[in-house]
Each structure stands twice: as C-alpha cells, then as structure tokens.
C-alpha cells in the first residue's frame, strides 16, 4: 500500500515536472556538444536572466486570476516600444530616459490593458486564444501609429528615427545612449572559480527582486486574495461578493503595465529597437520560458520564472552550436529552438486540457459511485 502511494507520488511528480525534466536532459546533452566555455555560458545566462525575468514575471498575475497565459502582454511591449521611440526622438538619454519611457508607457499600457480585459471578460474560458488574437489586432493599430502617424500626426524630429519619406519609423531605432545603462549602474564582476569573470547586472537584478517581493506582497492583499478566489472559481467568488469582472480587468492591466516596463528593460539591454518585430515574438518566448520552468496554465510561481529563464535560455544559447556539431548546419539548431518554443506551449496546453478532462471524469465517477451507494442503501 505504501509502495503504491509512493509510486503514485513519483508518477505525479514526473507528470507535473515533465517539461523541466525534458529540458534539463536537452541542456545536459547540448551543452557539451556546443563546445561553449563555462564562462561564456554563465555570462550569457546572467545577461538573459536580467533581460527577460521582468517580462516573464508580468505573466504571473493573470495566471493567479485564472486567466491563463496572457498572450496580451505583447500589448504592454508595444506600449513600451512607443514610449521608447518618443523618448529617443526627444533625446532623453540614460537612466532618466528609461524612467521617462516607463512613465510614458503607463497610460498606453493601462488603455490597452482595459481594452484587453474588457474583451477577455466577454470570452471567459477562452482567454488565451482571445488574448493571442487581440495581440494581432493591436499589432495592426501599432503599425498604423508607427508606420503612418509618427512623423505625420505625431511629431518626430530626427531623421535617424524617421523613414526617408518623411513619416513612419525606421526598421531599427538605436538606443545607444541608453544601452545597458541600468545593467551597468552598479558594476560588479564576480570571479567564480572554474568559470572565470561573470558580469552581474546588479541594478536590474535589484529591480527584479523588488518586483518579486511586490508579487509576494500583492498575493496577500485583499485584491490579491480576490484574484486567487476568482482564479479558483468565478461563481463562488461572485457569490462571496467579489466583483469578478473588475478583478479580472485589473489583473490584465497590471500585467500589461509590467510588460511595458519589462520591454523597456529588455530593450535597454539590447541597445536597439527592431520597430516592427521586437514585440511580435516576445509573448511566445516569455510564455514558453515560464512553461519550461514547470508552470502550467493555472499555476505559476516565481521559482518557475527563474528556472524557466535558465533552462529555456540555456537551450537557446547552446542549440545553434549543438545543431552545428550534430548536423554540420547551425540553421538546424536555429529551427530547433523555435520549434521547441512552440512545442513546449503546445505540450503544456495539451497536458492542461488532459488533466482538466481527467479531473472532470474522476469527479463524474465519484458522483456516480456516490449515487449508486445511495440507491443501494435505499433498496436495502
């Protein structure tokens, strides 16, 4: 009996942690094949952790509110990009430029978040696909603003930002005056034995740590508790007097605002904005990283974020080199990492749906058994 329960526990652990375990195996195979030095690997992972963690953390609150993986975080990313383009044109540089871009992104993010939240309230139970499609729709609006309105309606002064035709923004906007200013604000280089010198973006990590603490604190607030209640059961929460719709909208607004901040941190690290493509894949990669960390559609923790960033980005770094070593073509590795990103999301969604159906059928079976027992008692 004891052995059976132990086996069941191990099986359920393996089932729930199958994605991280799979990724640990992939990384363990690919790292030696890639031939990358420990120093390079550590530096790359540290940089990518600083670059991506804030964005991924922005996904936690909608999951808490039972809205699944917020593909609508792309909306916040677009708001952040628009703010950065304006700040670049106004020639506000360095940390003040970043702060101004963050402040400027807030109203855009709030408006987009409200819009997204209202629509998601109309599509309860189908939030993920709806938010995915909303991100495509808003991408169209973003293109209208960036490609036609900037320079013609919204004044853009600098020819380095504007397209030669006089309106619209160039494919790439340089953020050279802002590049890694936050990362290098508190310079620290650690000498790790056996690895070498690893550059730590201290200030970025401090900001990420603050956000983690805010999320932990937020869970304990009245609003956080309401969100958890809504996430567990909307009807019960409504009966308890919680304004379900409002709570859900707030969770999306918070997520969108945080995604806007995250995008600004991400782009200051990169040092340029790919105007028409930076945001398009960000949602997918962040969600994939979170799922790789062991999160699911209805449950995610801060630990999942960091494990996900480490595993997903290790795979991202080593895959092209490992692909080249195995097949002689680095493009195979490139395809592999994109393929894996989509595959992880698919597997996670399939697993979530399977578990939901399983739980439902178990519930049904238990109900049927209880009914049978009741009838038997009646007959006797």
């Amino acid at each position, binding site marked *: 009996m004891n052995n059976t329960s132990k086996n069941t526990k191990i099986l359920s652990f393996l089932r729930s942690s199958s994605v991280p375990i799979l990724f640990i195996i992939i990384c363990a195979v690919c790292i030696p094949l890639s031939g990358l030095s420990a120093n390079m690997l550590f530096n790359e992972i540290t940089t990518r952790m600083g670059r991506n963690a804030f964005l991924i953390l922005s996904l936690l609150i909608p999951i808490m509110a039972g809205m699944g993986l917020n593909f609508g975080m792309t909306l916040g990313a677009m708001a952040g990009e628009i703010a950065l383009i304006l700040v670049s044109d106004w020639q506000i540089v360095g*940390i*003040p430029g970043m702060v101004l871009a963050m402040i400027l992104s807030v109203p855009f993010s709030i408006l987009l978040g409200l819009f997204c939240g209202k629509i998601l309230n109309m599509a309860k139970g189908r939030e993920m696909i709806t938010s995915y499609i909303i991100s495509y729709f808003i991408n169209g609006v973003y293109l209208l603003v960036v490609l036609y309105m900037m320079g013609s309606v919204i004044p853009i002064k*600098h020819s380095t930002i504007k397209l030669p035709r006089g309106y619209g923004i160039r494919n790439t906007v340089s953020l050279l005056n802002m590049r890694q200013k936050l990362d290098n604000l508190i310079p620290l280089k650690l000498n790790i034995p056996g690895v070498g010198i690893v550059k730590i973006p201290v200030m970025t990590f401090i900001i990420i740590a603050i956000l983690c603490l805010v999320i932990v604190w937020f869970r304990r607030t009245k609003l956080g508790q309401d969100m958890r209640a809504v996430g567990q059961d909307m009807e019960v929460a409504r009966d308890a007097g919680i304004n379900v719709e409002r709570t859900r909208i707030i969770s999306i607004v918070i997520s969108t605002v945080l995604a806007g901040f995250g995008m600004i941190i991400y782009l200051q690290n990169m040092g340029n904005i790919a105007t028409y493509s930076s945001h398009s894949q960000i949602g997918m990669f962040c969600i994939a990283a979170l799922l790789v960390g062991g999160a699911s559609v209805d449950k995610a923790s801060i630990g999942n974020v960091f494990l996900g960033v480490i595993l997903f980005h290790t795979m991202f770094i080593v895959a092209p080199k490992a692909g080249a070593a195995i097949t002689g073509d680095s493009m195979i590795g490139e395809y592999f990492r994109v393929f894996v990103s989509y595959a992880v999301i698919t597997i996670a969604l399939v697993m979530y749906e399977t578990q939901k159906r399983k739980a439902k059928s178990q519930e049904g079976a238990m109900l049927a058994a209880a009914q049978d027992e009741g009838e038997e008692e009646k007959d006797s």
Partner: protein
Amino acid sequence: MKNKRKIIFRIIALALIIAVAACMFVIGRGHTVYFDNKELTGPDGTVYEPWYQIEVLVNGERVARLAEGDRGMVSTMGQDFKFEVKLTKQKGGKMQGGTIGVKLPYSIDGIIYNLPAMLAGAEESVYMEEFIPDPIEEETEDVVVTDEFAMPSEE
C-alpha cells in the same frame, strides 16, 4: 470622506509622477558636444588661430586629442557640462591646462565649440554654433516588412 481622501491621494500621486517625468526631461536631455581646433574669423574680423594640440578630458577621461584643424566629440547628459583642456601652443611647447564649465542650450542636439575662440575669451555667439548634419543625398528607402506572409509584389 473616504472617497475624498482617495481622490486627493490619487491627485498627489499623479502630480508626483508628472513632476518626476518633468525632472527626467531636464536632467536626461542628451547632447552631442563637438570640439573644434580650427581657425575662426569673428564677426569683427578677429582671427582665432588654432593651437598645436588640445586634449579634452571629461570626468578625467580623455575624449579627444585635437591637432590643428581637427574636430572631436562627446555625448553628454544634462545642461551643465564641464570639461578639462590641456593645451599646447607650439610643437615642443609647454602644456597649459584648465577646466571649463558651460551651460548647454536645451533645444540644441549637437553643439560645436570652437576651442581657440572660446579660450581667447570671445563671446558665446562667436565660438558656439549648432551642428547640423549634412543631408544624405540619395538614401535608399528602408523596406519595412510588416506581414511575413504577404504575397511578393510583382515589381
């Protein structure tokens, strides 16, 4: 009463955010400062001769070493700009030094300072001018791809 307090707090928070944004506008304004070591003739006909060599240091770091006719540049933030110069009048001559502080005009992105005129004590309108980049004659239009799945045009 509670609502009134809430509104007041919100207004204060909004005002605070706007104030921070305004501060960022002022302290974060970036400029590119160009240093010329070139001959300059003032409006009154005074000719300011270039020095044999001028070294420009900002925050203790050398940003330009200018021979006669050279131009150097540095990117800076804010309107108060201080730099150090090390001057050599003639080849093999004695090096002189000094620190100069200038107030950069907010509205100008690129500012050119003619150092010989500045060091000779000319007026600001003489030694300072706006840097206007040369227009690029034939610039190829950026091809903006917004639809990865679009059919290729027949052009």
